[in-house]
């Protein structure tokens, strides 16, 4: 019973974190109808930013969050305006953006390797103290608690943004109907650019805390994380950011169960999940908008 309780509780914490891993991808997909194939690489960038700030200046990962937010807004705006408006007008925005972001992913990975070498990096989880905490008799490192709380806060913030701010309201309008949003006078590019930046910011925050949930960070970790993130958002609900938390939870609990009881098959799980869900329910387990042909 202890093992089962541990698996479930760990799965939930793990799952909330993985909700955060997928969140940025889903925001960008929801607003722009484009798959950011460099999503995993932005997670990696967040992880490297946190590593160097910790390594050089001893900055706590929690304090990296505001820095990452600033950095990725500064990166996101020019990136958006350089590519997206042009792609939106092209013959096949979905496919061309997919390929473009794939190119971007390769560029990011190469630049990081050339700059910092192809090495694994990690931040010790003791940065949040050596003591552990316990839930229902199961004990976990403090870093897990910090990560789970940050991920949870991210969902609260995005909920608040969508429900209680003008920009968030405009973002939701674009997500539900782009044409109507355009007619009603919403500046689609500005709102989308902000959503794009938010997507990158949430990806980087997931990266900052990735050390405590998935271990070391390395420059080529991006593509796998992108695939996992896509599995999570398909599992939750493609194009509805808040649904990502459900996808993350399902994924987290499933992975923990696999690792506990069928560990040698655990690494195949996200891929099988992704394929099965896309074939059976392409709109996601809890979604509406189907995207199959």
């Amino acid at each position, binding site marked *: 019973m202890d093992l089962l309780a541990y698996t479930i509780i760990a799965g939930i914490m793990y799952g909330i974190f993985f909700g955060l891993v997928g969140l940025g991808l889903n925001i960008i997909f929801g607003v722009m109808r484009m798959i950011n194939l460099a999503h995993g690489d932005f997670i990696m960038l967040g992880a490297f930013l946190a590593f160097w700030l910790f390594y050089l200046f001893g900055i706590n990962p929690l304090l990296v969050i505001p820095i990452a937010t600033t950095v990725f807004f500064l990166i996101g705006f020019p990136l958006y305006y350089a*590519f997206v408006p042009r792609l939106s007008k092209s013959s096949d925005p979905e496919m*061309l953006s997919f*390929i473009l972001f794939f190119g971007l992913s*390769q560029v*990011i*990975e*190469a630049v990081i390797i*050339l700059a910092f070498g192809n090495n694994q990096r990690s931040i010790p989880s003791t940065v949040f103290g050596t003591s552990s905490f316990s839930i229902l008799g199961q004990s976990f490192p403090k870093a897990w608690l910090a990560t789970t709380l940050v991920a949870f806060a991210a969902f609260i913030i995005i909920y608040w943004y969508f429900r209680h701010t003008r920009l968030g309201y405009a973002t939701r309008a674009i997500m539900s109907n782009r044409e109507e949003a355009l007619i009603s006078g919403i500046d689609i590019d500005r709102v989308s650019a902000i959503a794009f930046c938010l997507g990158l910011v949430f990806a980087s925050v997931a990266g900052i805390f990735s050390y405590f949930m998935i271990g070391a960070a390395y420059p080529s970790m991006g593509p796998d994380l992108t*695939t996992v993130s896509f599995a999570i958002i398909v599992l939750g609900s493609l194009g509805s950011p808040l649904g990502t938390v459900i996808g993350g939870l399902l994924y987290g609990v499933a992975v923990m169960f696999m690792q506990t009881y069928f560990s040698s098959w655990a690494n195949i799980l996200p891929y099988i999940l992704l394929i099965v869900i896309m074939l059976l329910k*392409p709109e996601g387990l809890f979604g509406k908008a189907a995207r199959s042909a």
Partner: protein
Amino acid sequence: MLSKYYSSLGAIFVIIFIFVTLPFVYNNQSFLFNMMMYLALAEGLNIIYGFTGYLPFGYVGFFGAGAYGASIVIMFLRISPFLAVLAGGIAAVIIGIILFPLLRLSGAYFAIANLAASQALYYLVANPNLQKITQGPYGIDLSSVYNANASYYLMLGVLVFSMLLVLYMRKTDFGLSLLAIKEDRVTAALAGINIVKTRSIAWMLSAFVAGLCGAVFAWFTAVFYPSTVFNLNVSVFTIVFVLFGGMGTIVGPLLGTLILYSMYNFIGISTPEYFQLFYGLLIMILVLFLPNGVVSILQHWRIDVP
């Protein structure tokens, strides 16, 4: 009647000539082999991507299936490597048939699901529980049947086969029907085309070519690991080569591969990241400014590209 084939057949003869004569003046057989392999893979990917628009990000899955399919029959049945290569091609076709349902997905969704499928296959093959069949993560050793020259010329055969396939598709109603599906599925159906059957055939042909490539690669390399033949870079390189050259033609993928793979060997072998940075930027530039590849420049100058 034959005249419409002249320019394409010419291109094929040039390729044969190059790879038959080059070994006598340039003794880097491994480079020449890999070049032929990527040329064949590019033509194979061209069949599904260039003619139907499905972007197979998990194309390497077929390559790996071919490598393992051939190796397993060599190890267990002790048959000739030539037959084993055919078995590798068939293994890839079987994987293709299992993946038929993915063709229901459109655009980027297909690409991602296919990527996931190739990763799933990789983890399946590399799983220690299957060690009795696949040797799990410990890899394959075919050194007992190793024959560099035979496998080199067999690769040339596979390359010629892949080019003939694309030539067939360029010149026949079958290829035209695929292009029709790519343009508009509904209209294609109303022209009487059986969409499911037609695209499935293209998918299997494309898988077959990759399977043959993987199988010959296994024979040529003799010792390899799951991570060698399921390396995502195989998909990535092939896609980049086809995109750069221009899809839907015979010459586009050839040009793209000849130029970029040579470049990879000059700048990429010691520090692959420089090449990665280069092709990453190249992809972004292509998407924005030249989505139909280099051949579209030639076509713009009214040069007929076979």
